């Protein structure tokens, strides 16, 4: 049997687990059974996809099942691109299942989570495996619906119901856009098989239209600005391990959809498509991280930071598209490698951080960091692992986030030789915005870690928190280790994605793993190099040297005493900085005089004993400008159409007659 067949069996097994869970979700052992089975299947899936990616699987890579539309059948296939994304999906799925073994036991209504969790995993696997438009869209919709069911798992909370509603609408709009894109790709003859679509010739205008439609369809699922508004609502609403899957993995499936259609199926695209991606990507990066900085809810902050990271990935993809259109294959390969590496890295650290937020939620029952604090004393292991995730996502060496951002910067620096003036202006601007986003991400995660884990507890729940179970901790440890490994030996991953860039960008980076000391050198002409392993060793060596020298030659006396605080320590934990207080300087620098923030201060007159009140509202202006008009339009249209419900049968018949005649008329004029 070929590797595709095995992977399809994995997906089928996940669906089987889902059915089983539906039948037996009230059983006591259901939680352990479902997550255990998902874990086992995902591990097999990871092994298979890595084997396929490194070329150790057999040659037969296609599978045609007699399902779906009768004369088409369902095609499934695996190539290097889908193998890479399958690895991302299954590693994330394995980690989430492992975490779920512990976290899932705290679930109040497990029957609302258990059946959908494996179904969601199966859906993501199937999207990546699908090789014709029909099964692709079917799996995509299945994935969306399964995740929707998980978003409204805690449906008694009105906010979650609203999030589920918004998500459902956005998912439908996205699928509609993808449907239209496939319709355009298939052309008048209707080739739904990817192989046939690849061979078909189409006008440049059609390709451009496909690009825009895919940007709406896949971009809305990935959370690109301006289609991001659902993401900070929906991702945090789900249980934490599902949030991790949605943010860390499902957005990557959307990226897969984008790469598959735009780079693989749509054929050659003009240079401005790269410029469009750059603009959307850099806007997402900066707006996403600014929005993240303003959040006080840890899970929502993490969801907003996903928008930023998706933006970084799209900057890489945009550069790759622009380079490819201008025939600079080596630079296109570099940009694409950077984007793919960031896909993998983001799936690691975002899942890790959501797991950490879930652990805090389990331990304290609270997501608002302004009611937490001091958790480092109560939850030492969680806090250490969460810190590793914060460092990775803030792009600090020697962890993995830095490597992919470094590669993206290197790709930016390759672009002055692009001939188009629009790109010459846009690329440095995008590079600057990327740098800004990276710095702001550092601030956002100092805030997250500092307010939640450091300082003094701000509530009794935080003061009495307990460390979480071993399953959750081992899932987080696994991901933190992956962050470190991907950070110090990125050369192996870069080599693994080389076949993808060779297929889609027309070139590959030079072989990295043979370079001395596992250095990475994206191109030999520039000679820029980075070595995560050595940096890691240097930091370890010099800090240990400093510790040793100090403890050998200097004093090691230590005394515990009350905090100094310039002589006026205040016992109330409310005197510490709060989350919004921490972000206030940055808010004042970047967001004053924008409609995004409204501050209201009511200060009592002198002598008045009333307490002063300060209210801060942070809105997403895009919500008012873009979504609200759309929603109102839909409502008005619905009201008008509502009148059609109360007609007499005669009128209905005449309506049917009229529409038939007009449709036939259109057909007659058309042909």
């Amino acid at each position: 049997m070929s590797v595709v067949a095995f992977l399809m069996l994995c997906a089928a097994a996940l669906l089987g687990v889902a059915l089983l869970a539906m039948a037996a979700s009230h059983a006591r052992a259901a939680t352990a059974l479902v997550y255990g089975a998902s874990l086992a299947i995902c591990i097999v899936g990871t092994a298979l996809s890595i084997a396929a990616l490194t070329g150790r699987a057999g040659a037969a890579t296609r599978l045609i099942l007699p399902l779906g539309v009768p004369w088409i059948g369902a095609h499934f296939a695996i190539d290097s691109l889908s193998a890479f994304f399958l690895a991302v999906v299954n590693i994330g799925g394995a980690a989430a299942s492992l975490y779920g073994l512990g976290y899932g036991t705290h679930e109040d209504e497990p029957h609302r989570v258990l059946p959908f969790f494996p179904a969601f995993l199966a859906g993501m696997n199937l999207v990546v495996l699908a090789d014709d438009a029909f099964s692709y869209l079917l799996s995509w919709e299945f994935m969306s619906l399964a995740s929707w069911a998980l978003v409204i798992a805690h449906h008694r909370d009105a906010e979650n119901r609203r999030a589920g509603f918004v998500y459902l609408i956005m998912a439908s709009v996205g699928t509609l856009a993808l449907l239209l894109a496939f319709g355009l790709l298939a052309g008048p003859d209707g080739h739904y098989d990817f192989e046939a679509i690849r061979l078909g010739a189409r006008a440049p205008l059609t390709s451009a239209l496909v690009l825009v439609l895919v940007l709406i369809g896949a971009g809305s699922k990935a959370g690109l600005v301006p289609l991001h508004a659902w993401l900070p609502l929906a991702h945090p609403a789900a249980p934490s391990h599902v949030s991790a899957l949605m943010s860390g993995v499902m957005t990557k499936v959307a990226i897969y959809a984008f790469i598959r259609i735009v780079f693989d199926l749509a054929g050659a695209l003009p240079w401005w498509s790269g410029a469009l991606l750059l603009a959307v990507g850099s806007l997402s990066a900066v707006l996403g991280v600014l929005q993240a900085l303003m959040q006080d809810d840890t899970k929502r902050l993490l969801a907003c930071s996903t928008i930023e990271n998706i933006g970084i990935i799209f900057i890489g993809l945009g550069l790759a598209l622009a380079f490819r259109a201008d025939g600079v294959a080596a630079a296109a390969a570099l940009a694409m490698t950077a984007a793919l590496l960031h896909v993998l890295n983001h799936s690691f650290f975002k899942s890790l951080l959501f797991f950490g937020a879930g652990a805090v939620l389990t331990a304290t029952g609270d997501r608002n960091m302004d009611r937490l604090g001091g958790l480092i004393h109560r939850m030492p292991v969680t806090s250490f692992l969460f810190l590793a995730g914060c460092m990775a996502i803030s792009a600090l060496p020697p962890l993995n986030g830095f490597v992919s951002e470094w590669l993206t910067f290197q790709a930016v620096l390759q672009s002055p030789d692009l001939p188009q003036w629009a790109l010459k202006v846009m690329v440095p601007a995008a590079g600057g915005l990327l740098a800004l986003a990276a710095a702001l991400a550092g601030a956002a995660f100092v805030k997250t870690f500092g307010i939640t884990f450091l300082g003094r507890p701000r509530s009794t729940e935080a003061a009495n928190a307990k460390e979480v179970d071993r399953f959750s901790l081992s899932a987080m440890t696994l991901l933190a280790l992956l962050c470190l490994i991907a950070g110090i030996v990125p050369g192996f991953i870069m080599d693994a994605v080389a076949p993808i860039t060779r297929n889609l960008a027309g070139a590959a980076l030079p072989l990295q793993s043979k370079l001395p000391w596992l250095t990475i050198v994206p191109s030999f002409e520039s000679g820029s190099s980075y070595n995560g392993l050595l940096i890691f060793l240097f930091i370890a060596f010099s800090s240990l040297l400093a510790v040793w020298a100090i403890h050998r030659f200097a004093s090691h006396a230590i005394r515990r005493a009350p905090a100094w605080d310039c002589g006026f320590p205040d016992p109330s934990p409310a005197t510490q900085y709060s989350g919004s207080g921490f972000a206030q300087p940055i808010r004042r620098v970047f967001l004053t005089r924008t409609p995004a923030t409204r501050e209201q201060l009511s200060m009592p007159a002198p002598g008045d004993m009333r307490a002063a009140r300060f209210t801060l509202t942070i809105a997403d202006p895009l919500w008012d400008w873009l979504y609200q008009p759309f929603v109102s339009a839909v409502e008005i249209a619905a009201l008008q159409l509502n009148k059609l419900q109360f007609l007499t049968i005669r009128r209905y018949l005449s309506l049917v007659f009229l529409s038939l005649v007009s449709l036939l008329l259109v057909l007659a004029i058309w042909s």
Partner: protein
Amino acid sequence: MELISALLVQLMQMMLVLWAAPLLTGFVRKVKARLQRRQGPPILQPYRDILRLLKKEVVVANNASWIFRVAPYLIFAATWVAAALVPTFAKGLLFSWSADLIAIIALLASARFFLALAGMDIGTAFGGIGSSREMMIASLAEPAMLLVVFTMALVARSTQLSAVADLLASSGVGLRVSLGLAMVGLIIVAIAENGRIPVDNPATHLELTMVHEAMVLEYSGRHLAMIELAAAVKLLLYVSLIGCIFVPWTLAAPGGSTASHLAGFGAYIAKLALFGFLLAVFETAIAKMRVFRLPDFVGGALMLGLLGTLLLFASRSL
């Protein structure tokens, strides 16, 4: 043999950085004091301070966590590693290929990350104010620095510091508008990152104007010594960086004679003295800014960096 001599130069360089950093700080303080018609502490005072701090016991707040105790060493290590990657008196450092300019910036960002966390660990208002303002300044200074690096990297076609220094030392480059913009930008970033006037006052103990000092308020003894030493090394790093990029002619070539290394060393000390003197004059001549005027100042560096990069995207020869 070549490896041993290269290793020797690398080790000497690392020790030189440690040795010279407090000296530079002391020198700047002395010049500032003389400019203000004060006697000022002796130039060697920073060494004495650090040695005395090392001998004292550490007083740690009751609710300090392990972050508070680990951070000084990590801050010091990250800063020291970054400084070891910047050529001071000789080019061709043994490990210079292991990290480029972007990685050096990121190492400094790691140090800042831990310093900001350490400031928030005790849970005092001062620690929070320092961390929050430090991250605000960094959110502008770091992208500015990266754009300055882009400018230099586009000229040299490499982000490797040794390649940049090599190219700028050769006669092929000459005077360039973009490099001029980059220099001004880099100097502004250096002032902001090191917490010098007008961004922050290293000598202040007036609480509401503190940024760096507020974060380290709770530190004492050997921990404080490590942080002070790291701050001195960071100042030296920026001075070396400016010297290595914009005055690269005095760097000794790899494998050069002992005499050339000695000459490079002398020139390096001269560079430190010159930049230290200029810094002291600048700090004496200017007043501290209000915190919310800083974005204009540091944002200026960001714009200069962007302008330099844009110019080079327009034409490689600008």
